[in-house]
């Protein structure tokens, strides 16, 4: 028995997705597909000014049949708890941004709900929109390595530049959606929620003692990309407050306009570089300043800044580095988590800067990067020694060869085509000792037919269920089909930490692998089903164990920032229409080193999807902010790539196993979003156009072209 079973191999195979059939038949249940008896619909009334005071709220409707909630109805604390408890669940007096939730309404008839008019009396004050002029920093970080002055003294050349990135909207195709149901003396919240335990904690604080038991259950989720990481906590609280007051289930669904207007976006960034190099192109000093626009509340800005700054020097070795970073307050809706988490912004800066360095020094862009890329044993900006799995050089060489970069670069010179490349890296898991603090847990239990995996890791489309089941199947030596994966329900599953930071495979997958090995030892010769029949239930909960070598100094930002890094190189070919200034990506080669592809088709899907999202970030996606509000909050006016905007994609996955990950796997989900934007802009540079910001929309390219000599 055992022999046959251990030969089964799910890892490394593109097994059928656990959720494939439900999604292909329309049977999968997303939040808006659920209905509960007596359910009401909820609506959020929001501020209309970016800064000021709420003087009065006037209801212009007959309240019969309505549930109306304001901050006075909050039994616990009026705060959406996260890193800093600065964001109120509902505005009391101070208004810090447009679309801040002020009042909540519920009614069983959606049309009546919609028809209810509420007048807000708001007293405007002077807003701050420019992060550089903002008096308030949410967080500052300083990373220092070596001696910067000495580095510059050694330099033959100094190159400077400023690079800017705009907001990016997640555009998960399923808008935010939550349903709160008063149940068994407690409150159960169902929703499109990336991190059920974040919502759970926030609800506990807001509901206080009024509710004995809070339970959060993730429903099938139509995309998240970070946008459903922290934001749904507030929506869950809103729905729960309405449900508490009405004692009825309340469904709160945002329409697309509300979703775009009110919810978080990727932080806009300004990145300044001053770089010293020797004549032959060796980096000797990197002085980097990073400014993130945090919006009106902290949300996750501190952590986004942290990842952004750690990645800001790129995957390069340099002995003398200073990275000074700050996340600033502005009177705009708070920016938050978005795939990449600060790294796309800073890596845009460094990779466009590297291209400008190559240009300034008359060096070949590949050669310049080759010379400076991290090799095993080199140290990063935080002083971390990168491991044997460091694949930066191989990734670059593979991409250059595979794409025909050098040949095309020559051939395209002076034509309407350009080719550019970008190197990138992405740390897997929480920064520094973050994982230790999280102390994530994951459970495997026997069932009558196999085993069930219980984690709070959510399926957002990236394949969590499938990939966890594969890891458990192989670690346990049972067929993949016999592994079930439970829906994340805070009432049933342990806290495996949030589904973020490219940690779900590497970190949670590893915990599961160990738990499975423990079970396997207990089973002896029996299959899980046999064991279950003979001995009854058995469950093993594994907990995160930090690799011994990790040392991290949170104050000085020194040490082992991430347990592992994944590596990438993108080569992008573009075509420019000089009459319309439209740039079309025609071909993209992506080489990603990810340790181990547990499920090659899923991995490829992450890379393809992330790359196209990155192309949108580079070329199309522009949030127009007017007076602190997104003025183009519709899919007609905020445009993401369609089938006709996507180029030919050539994806290569390399595997340098990381021995702390399950079967060698590292994090992958975020990596591919880091490369496209700088590679696109570097391709545009080959056309003689000096673009230093994104989105590089035709209007911006035209302006840059007019300004370029």
């Amino acid at each position, binding site marked *: 028995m055992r022999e046959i079973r251990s030969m089964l191999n799910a890892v490394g195979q593109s097994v059928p997705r656990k959720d494939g059939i439900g999604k*292909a038949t329309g049977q999968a249940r997303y939040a808006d597909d659920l209905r509960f008896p007596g359910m009401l619909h909820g609506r959020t009334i929001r501020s209309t000014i970016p800064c000021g005071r709420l003087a009065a709220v006037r209801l212009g409707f007959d309240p019969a049949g309505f549930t109306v909630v304001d901050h006075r109805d909050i039994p616990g604390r009026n705060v959406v708890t996260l890193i800093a408890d600065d964001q109120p669940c509902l505005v009391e007096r101070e208004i810090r941004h447009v679309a801040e939730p002020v009042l909540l309404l519920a009614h069983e008839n959606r049309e009546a709900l919609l028809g209810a008019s509420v007048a807000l009396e708001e007293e405007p004050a002077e807003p701050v929109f420019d992060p550089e002029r903002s008096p308030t920093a949410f967080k500052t970080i300083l990373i220092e390595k070596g001696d910067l002055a000495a580095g510059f003294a050694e330099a033959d050349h100094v190159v400077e530049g400023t690079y800017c990135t705009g907001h990016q909207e997640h555009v998960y195709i399923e808008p935010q959606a939550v349903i709160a149901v008063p149940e068994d003396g407690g409150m159960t919240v169902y929703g499109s929620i990336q991190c059920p335990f974040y919502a759970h904690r926030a609800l506990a604080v807001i509901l206080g003692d009024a509710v004995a038991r809070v339970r959060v259950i993730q429903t099938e989720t139509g995309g998240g990309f970070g946008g459903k990481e922290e934001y749904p906590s507030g929506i869950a609280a809103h729905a729960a407050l309405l449900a508490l007051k009405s004692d009825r289930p309340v469904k709160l669904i945002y329409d697309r306009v509300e979703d775009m207007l009110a919810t978080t976006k990727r932080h806009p960034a300004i990145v300044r570089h001053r770089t010293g190099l020797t004549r032959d192109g060796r980096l000797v000093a990197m002085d980097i300043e990073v400014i993130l626009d945090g919006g009106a509340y902290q949300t996750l800005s501190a952590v986004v800044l942290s990842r952004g700054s750690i990645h800001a020097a790129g995957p390069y070795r340099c002995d003398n580095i200073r990275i000074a970073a700050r996340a600033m307050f502005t009177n705009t809706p708070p920016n938050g988590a978005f795939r990449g988490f600060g790294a796309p912004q800073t890596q845009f800066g460094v990779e466009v800067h590297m291209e400008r360095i190559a240009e300034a020094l008359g060096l070949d862009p590949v050669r310049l990067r080759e010379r400076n890329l991290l090799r095993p044993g080199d140290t990063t900006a935080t002083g971390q020694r990168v491991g044997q799995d460091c694949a930066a050089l191989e990734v670059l060489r593979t991409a250059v060869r595979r794409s025909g970069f050098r040949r095309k670069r020559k051939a395209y010179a002076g034509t309407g085509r350009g080719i550019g490349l970008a190197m990138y890296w992405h740390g897997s898991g929480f920064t520094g000792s973050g994982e230790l603090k999280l102390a994530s847990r994951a459970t495997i239990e026997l069932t009558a037919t196999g085993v069930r995996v219980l984690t709070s890791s959510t399926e957002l489309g990236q394949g969590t269920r499938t990939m966890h089941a594969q890891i458990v199947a192989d670690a346990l030596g049972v067929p993949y089909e016999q592994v079930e994966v439970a829906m994340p329900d805070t009432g049933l599953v342990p806290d495996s930490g949030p589904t973020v930071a490219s940690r779900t495979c590497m970190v949670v997958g590893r915990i599961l692998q160990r738990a499975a090995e423990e079970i396997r030892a207990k089973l002896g010769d029996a299959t899980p089903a046999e064991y279950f029949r003979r001995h009854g239930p058995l469950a093993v909960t594994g907990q995160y164990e930090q690799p011994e070598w990790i040392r991290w100094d949170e104050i000085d930002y020194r040490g082992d920032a991430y347990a592992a890094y994944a590596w990438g190189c993108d080569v992008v070919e573009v075509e420019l229409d000089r009459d319309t200034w439209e740039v079309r990506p025609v071909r993209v080669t992506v080489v990603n080193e990810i340790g181990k592809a547990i499920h090659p088709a899923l991995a490829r899907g992450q890379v393809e999807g992330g790359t196209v999202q990155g192309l949108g970030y580079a070329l199309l996606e522009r949030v127009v902010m007017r007076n602190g509000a997104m003025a183009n909050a519709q899919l007609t006016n905020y445009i993401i790539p369609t089938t006709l905007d996507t180029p030919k994609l050539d994806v290569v996955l390399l595997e340098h196993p990381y021995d702390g990950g399950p079967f060698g796997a590292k994090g992958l989900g975020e990596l591919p979003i880091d490369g496209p934007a700088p590679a696109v802009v570097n391709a545009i540079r080959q056309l003689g156009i000096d673009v230093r910001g994104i989105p590089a929309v035709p209007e911006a390219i035209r302006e840059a072209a007019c300004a370029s000599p």
Partner: protein
Amino acid sequence: MRFTLNAREVELNVAPLARLLDVLREDCGLTGTKEGCGEGECGACTVLVDGEAVCACLVPVAQVEGAEVVTIEGLGDDHPLQRAFMDEVGAQCGICTPGMILTAITLGPRPSLAKIRRGLAGNLCRCTGYEAIYRAIHRAS
């Protein structure tokens, strides 16, 4: 009003200007048709009306009087495209998938890549970058 829904006659008493999308989801209980924008941009609400793909969020239900409407539920669970979407991981989060599959049905047999790309331009997917969807459609044909 009457129309044919997934090969069955239905008779409903609904407001004539209700969106077909809401009638399908709320009055007929068919929640496989999704709403991503309500402005005709995303295609998540795509259904077939008399064999042609339309956005159910932009169709007043009165305009399908007497017509044949097919939703994802009408394909059952063993349509070649459904199988191909599973095999090729054409669905990640899955919210665009019902609409994608229904539009793909109208592409006809053995569509070229160019035809697929043009045909699916009204169906946004934020997860896949579309490549796996092309692979699925090629496999099914």
